[in-house]
């Protein structure tokens, strides 16, 4: 029953079982066990990647002449995501050894992380909706558990609830979409559905599917769960944002792209992607929380991937997909280190960078995010720009977003890099070898991915994906590089010239400005949410009072019978003269009746 690619899940599941059964008190044993399991599953992944792509079917259950199967495929896209997930998971688990230093919570953390990783791996190799939804919903649930990991603190439970409520909308619409797909095609296999002739109602399940994708990938109406989700542990954020969870939605569109093309839904994806990336970029400029700025940059990146898919530029989407993985995890891991060494403070004005490695990795990560040559981020952003250049409006918006993203990420970097006086700092002595080692590995991965993009593009992508010859678009590349350099230098000189006290004072007064109010924390989306919430609450209020009234009515209805009974009870009072009276009355009536008759 077990097919070969599913063996990647086995070590992870065994390790998670160990985490449930055993409770290693005051030791780091669990973290090493889970690291080993992740390493083994990485090796199996490599083995899967070497094998030629194939499709496997496992029967789950048969019902009513239909069979419900798990279908697993190992084509290029599956292998790509699988590779990224298992690669990043190694970094995350190394990082976690130093990060999770509360022994009593270790088992819970590793259990949730391992299930999360295996759900993502299952998702990445799934080729039908059954195996997809299992991975999809387990991802949502474990991310809920991981975001609310520090549940004894004040904020994380709320953040987790926001996340799960949004994700729940996605899960339900995913189920709706699956059910409609099944009735349209009588199969749930992706490749069969893609190759079947187009059905008239195809766009209906696809729209529900898009809702699910937008919730998971934090697209426009559902962007708001991602920034509160920063309350979770940093390795979780890094994993969530770099290769798993939020990428799941994008990946699903990539796989089902032919269907979206057939049903003319690309414009919707393009539009939502543009709105989302503008929201992400502008909110990141107004934010001060070290991790939330990167979270908004994730929203922006996901929006850009949606734009690429909306333009039917598969190559650009994939390039963004790959490069984003490395710089995002690098930025998160480094900022987690900074937060840890400042006693979990999060305002960028209060933080400073104390280690050379962190400074280098932050700079390279930021440069890659901004899209500076020769780092790999450049190849992602520029290929999207090249694909968009035929459409002037989209192109201009994209250039603006590139400029904004360079601005906010270097604002983030230069404020932190500025030397702080003693009164702004809350430095504690902290050093962790495993965390630094993970950051170092990630740095190497980012640089080597840049190297691959420059020199060995043809080895990354197979021949059937249309690639860009970067040499023939020098004009676009130079324009974008100049813009980014302008952004970098303006931020550099601006933050160099101003004193720290001035910046903090300015930040305090920023709440008063209209622009800040407009861009900070997605006010309008929250407004819509609260409207919907109040609407449901109003209906619920009406129904509640109706239910009370209904119960009262039943009570009074019962009371009528009691009253009647009370009246009738008086007839039987046990007094003989009353009975004689009734007897006489009855006799009179009887006699009268016979007389009249």
């Amino acid at each position, binding site marked *: 029953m077990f097919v070969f690619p599913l063996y990647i899940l086995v070590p992870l599941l065994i390790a998670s079982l160990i985490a449930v059964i055993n409770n290693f008190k005051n030791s780091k044993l669990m973290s090493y066990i889970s690291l080993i399991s992740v390493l083994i599953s990485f090796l199996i992944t490599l083995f899967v990647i070497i094998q030629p792509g194939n499709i496997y079917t496992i029967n789950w259950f048969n019902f009513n002449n239909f069979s419900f199967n798990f279908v697993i495929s190992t084509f290029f896209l599956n292998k790509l995501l699988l590779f990224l997930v298992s690669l990043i998971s190694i970094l995350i688990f190394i990082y976690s050894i130093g990060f999770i230093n509360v022994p009593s919570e270790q088992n819970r953390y590793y259990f949730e992380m391992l299930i999360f990783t295996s759900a993502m791996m299952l998702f990445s190799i799934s080729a039908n909706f059954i195996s997809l939804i299992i991975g999809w919903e387990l991802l949502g649930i474990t991310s809920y558990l991981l975001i609310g990991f520090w549940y004894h603190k004040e904020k994380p439970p709320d953040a987790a609830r926001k996340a799960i409520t949004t994700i729940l909308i996605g899960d339900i619409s995913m189920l*709706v979409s699956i059910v409609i797909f099944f009735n349209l095609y009588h199969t749930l296999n992706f490749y069969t559905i893609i190759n079947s002739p187009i059905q008239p109602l195809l766009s209906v399940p696809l729209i529900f599917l898009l809702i699910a994708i937008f919730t998971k990938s934090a697209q426009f109406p559902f962007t708001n769960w991602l920034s509160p989700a920063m309350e979770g542990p940093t390795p979780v954020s890094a994993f969530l944002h770099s290769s798993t969870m939020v990428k799941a939605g994008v990946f699903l569109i990539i796989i089902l792209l032919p269907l979206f093309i057939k049903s003319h839904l690309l414009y919707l994806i393009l539009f939502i992607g543009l709105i989302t990336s503008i929201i992400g970029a502008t909110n990141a400029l107004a934010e001060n929380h070290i991790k939330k700025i990167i979270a908004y940059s994730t929203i922006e990146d996901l929006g850009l991937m949606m734009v690429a898919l909306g333009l039917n530029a598969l190559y650009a989407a994939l390039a963004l997909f790959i490069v984003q993985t490395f710089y995002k995890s690098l930025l998160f891991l480094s900022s987690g280190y900074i937060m840890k060494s400042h006693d979990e403070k999060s305002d960028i004005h209060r933080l400073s960078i104390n280690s050379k490695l962190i400074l280098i990795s932050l700079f390279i990560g930021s440069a890659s995010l901004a899209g500076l040559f020769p780092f790999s981020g450049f190849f992602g952003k520029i290929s999207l720009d090249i694909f968009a250049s035929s459409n002037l409006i989209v192109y201009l918006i994209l250039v603006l977003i590139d400029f904004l993203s360079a601005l906010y990420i270097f604002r983030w970097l230069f404020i932190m890099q500025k030397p702080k006086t003693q009164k702004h700092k809350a430095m504690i002595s902290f050093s962790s070898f495993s965390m630094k080692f993970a950051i170092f590995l990630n740095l190497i991965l980012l640089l080597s991915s840049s190297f691959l993009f420059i020199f060995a593009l043809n080895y990354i992508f197979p021949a059937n994906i249309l690639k860009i010859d970067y040499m023939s678009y020098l004009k676009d590349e130079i324009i974008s590089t100049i813009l980014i350099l302008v952004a970098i230098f303006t931020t550099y000189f601006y933050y160099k010239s101003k004193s720290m006290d001035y910046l903090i004072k300015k930040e305090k007064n920023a709440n008063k400005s209209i622009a800040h109010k407009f861009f900070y924390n997605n006010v309008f989306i929250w407004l819509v949410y609260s409207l919907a919430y109040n609407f449901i609450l109003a209906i619920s209020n009406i129904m*509640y009072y109706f239910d009370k009234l209904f119960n009262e009515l039943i009570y009074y209805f019962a009371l009528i019978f009691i009253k009647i009974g009370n009246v009738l009870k008086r007839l039987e009072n046990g007094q003989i003269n009353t009975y004689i009276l009734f007897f006489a009355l009855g006799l009179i009536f009887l006699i009268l009746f016979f007389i009249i008759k």
Partner: protein
Amino acid sequence: MLILNQLISQFLSNILDICILIPAIAIIFIALLKEKHSRQISILSTGLVLAISLFLLIYFYKIGNVNITNSILFIKSLNINFNLGLNPISFVLFLMANIILFATALAGNVHRAEQKLSSFLIILFQISGIGLFLSLNLFIFFIFWDIGVISLFFMINILGSPNRRTASMKFLIYEIFASSLLLFGILIIYFYTPIHSFNIQKIITNSNLIPANIQLVIFVLLLIAFAINLPVFPFHSWLPDAHTEAPTQGSMLLSGILTKFGGFGIILLFEMLPIFKLYSNYIAIAAIVSIFYSVFVLMKQDDIKRVIAYSTITEMGIVLFGISELNNFGLFGSIYAMLSHGLIIALMFLIAGSIELIYGTRSIKVLKGIVKNARLSAYCFLIGTFAIVGMPLTTAFIADLLIFIGAIQSFGLYGIIPLFAILLLGAFMYFIINKSFLSTKKYSKNIDFIRIEQKFVYFILLFFIFLFGIFPFIILKLLNPI
């Protein structure tokens, strides 16, 4: 080997009688022996029947179909037989009832002073629950129905919380009204079928001979009876009160098994009366109204038990919706939904009961930080919530999948409407978890009190929820579409 087969066949031919005899003997022992033995006897009795039903599950899974009948002549002059039998539909519910009964006898029944009475009532209800799902005869169906109602009435009336008198009377009046309608309907069926029989199989084959207007009368009578039991919106108001006042074991049995009587009845109605198909759209609308009504009322409740009670109305509304689809996906989906709901709701009520025991309150506003004091219960509540919402790998996912595939076949895109109620239900359950399970803003009472039996029952219920969720073919192989 031959002897073994003969033994098995001998055993099988009497197995259904044995299933009813075991609790019948146990109840005598409980009545005769001292109070300290009563709990053990109840556990033994429910455990034995559970073991038999698990054996039957394995046996049926091997031979691939479910079909046994036992018949003893009961009242000769009226041609009433004591027909017991199992078909795929009743077997699933029979199995579910036995799991819940065992869980109830083991964990729901620990901290009460009146153990003898409590065990007695559980075993009385065991007879009723087993007998009802085994009955192939409307007459004994009715008898077992009333036994169940009466045993739960006493359970609420004697063992319940302070406000139990009104709630139990309300429950009794509603249920007796339902059973009088049921009796009336059954008698009409008896007199209008040409062969004058209570046997369900014979009624199904001869149902076309009942005149259409009489069928309508029977349909309305039985539908109202079963709708009260399910419950469906205008007839629901006994359920939240009964649940709030009932003891833990009462809630588990009430929601876990008694509401399934109604669901089983509706499936019988669907099989017996051809006229059901004409009115299925109205039933679906009633189900949707009931689903949304209960979800919206649920969102204003403050009592955890009341919330779970209203969620029962939602889930049973989905079951009714599934049956009204009139296709195999809907029918078997709703049976699966009943299985799933019974297991999950028993778990949830057990947790609610244990929370009340620890904190002395069930108010969502007052409770805080349950996960700190009652860690295992909190985790199980979380998993139960995931299961209610329909997480894959739990039974609820299979149920939802089958029901809504059928819904789209029957009602088109309107069929997905009930899913939005599940969305609201899930959102509110997460709100509860956030408010009273996670946030640890000072609630000082710190008694970590959980018995080993209760842990074991959590394990059993979760085991079956995941077993039938991960390996749905165990059940679905038996449910061969007719």
